């Protein structure tokens, strides 16, 4: 198997998500601590959830990168120009784009199956608290939302 070169975009976005998930996980741990319910199972649940959430995002980003790399040297004809306000006619997808679509759908199914396995492990094994492990899965979305807000603020400031 050949080695995979990770694109800077993938590295950068995964880094941002990892940082966001880390900060939000620390906040979750602090909430548990304040409520007096923090113990090692919560910590292990958070760590398991964090590892899975970041890994899941990274795998998704790698699939996207792979799909983009498949377009190297492929020329797609420009969409036909239309009158103002008119929708361009639907064009057939190129074979590479169709392949990328299938690959992405397959990757999604695989990652969801992995999430089910992780959730079952977190619920069934007594050393993990399932609730923090599952809550962490929602943190990448919150991180993207916060990032969007910060970008908007920066644009407004400029």
């Amino acid at each position, binding site marked *: 198997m050949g080695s995979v070169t990770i694109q800077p975009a993938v590295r950068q976005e995964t880094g941002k998500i990892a940082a966001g998930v880390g900060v939000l996980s620390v906040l979750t741990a602090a909430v548990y601590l304040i409520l007096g319910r923090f113990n090692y199972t919560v910590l292990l649940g958070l760590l398991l959830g964090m590892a899975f959430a970041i890994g899941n995002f990274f795998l998704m980003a790698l699939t996207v990168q792979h799909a983009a790399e498949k377009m190297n040297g492929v020329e797609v004809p420009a969409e036909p120009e239309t009158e103002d306000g008119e929708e361009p006619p639907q064009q057939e997808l190129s074979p590479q784009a169709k392949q990328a679509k299938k690959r992405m759908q397959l990757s*999604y199914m695989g990652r969801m199956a992995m999430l089910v396995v992780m*959730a079952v492990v977190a619920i069934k094994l007594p050393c993990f608290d399932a609730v923090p492990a599952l809550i962490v899965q929602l943190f990448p979305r919150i991180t993207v939302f916060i990032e969007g807000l910060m970008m908007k603020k920066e644009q407004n400031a400029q």
Partner: protein
Amino acid sequence: MIELAIGIILAGCAIGAGLALIAGIGPGIGEGNAVAKACEAIGRQPESRGSVTSTMIMGCAIAETTGLYGLVIGILLIFVAPNLLINAFKNGLLWAKENGFI
């Protein structure tokens, strides 16, 4: 009677979990379509690959959350909710008996 009520609770949880997992279908289809269109955009303008890839990754992350919500709810309904609901039902029954409602 109690067995019937517990059966209804378990059936409700199983049906609810099944319904929640329907939410997992949409993101898969949507992500596939988004990636296919983004790939075509890269094919048309190879120089914009970096920015398209970044936007595509973020878009996929957002789209995927809907599926995750459904999956998490489904998992909670299968593994966590039945015990909680059955215990609540039994406690309610006990309370009703103690207060002379039954």
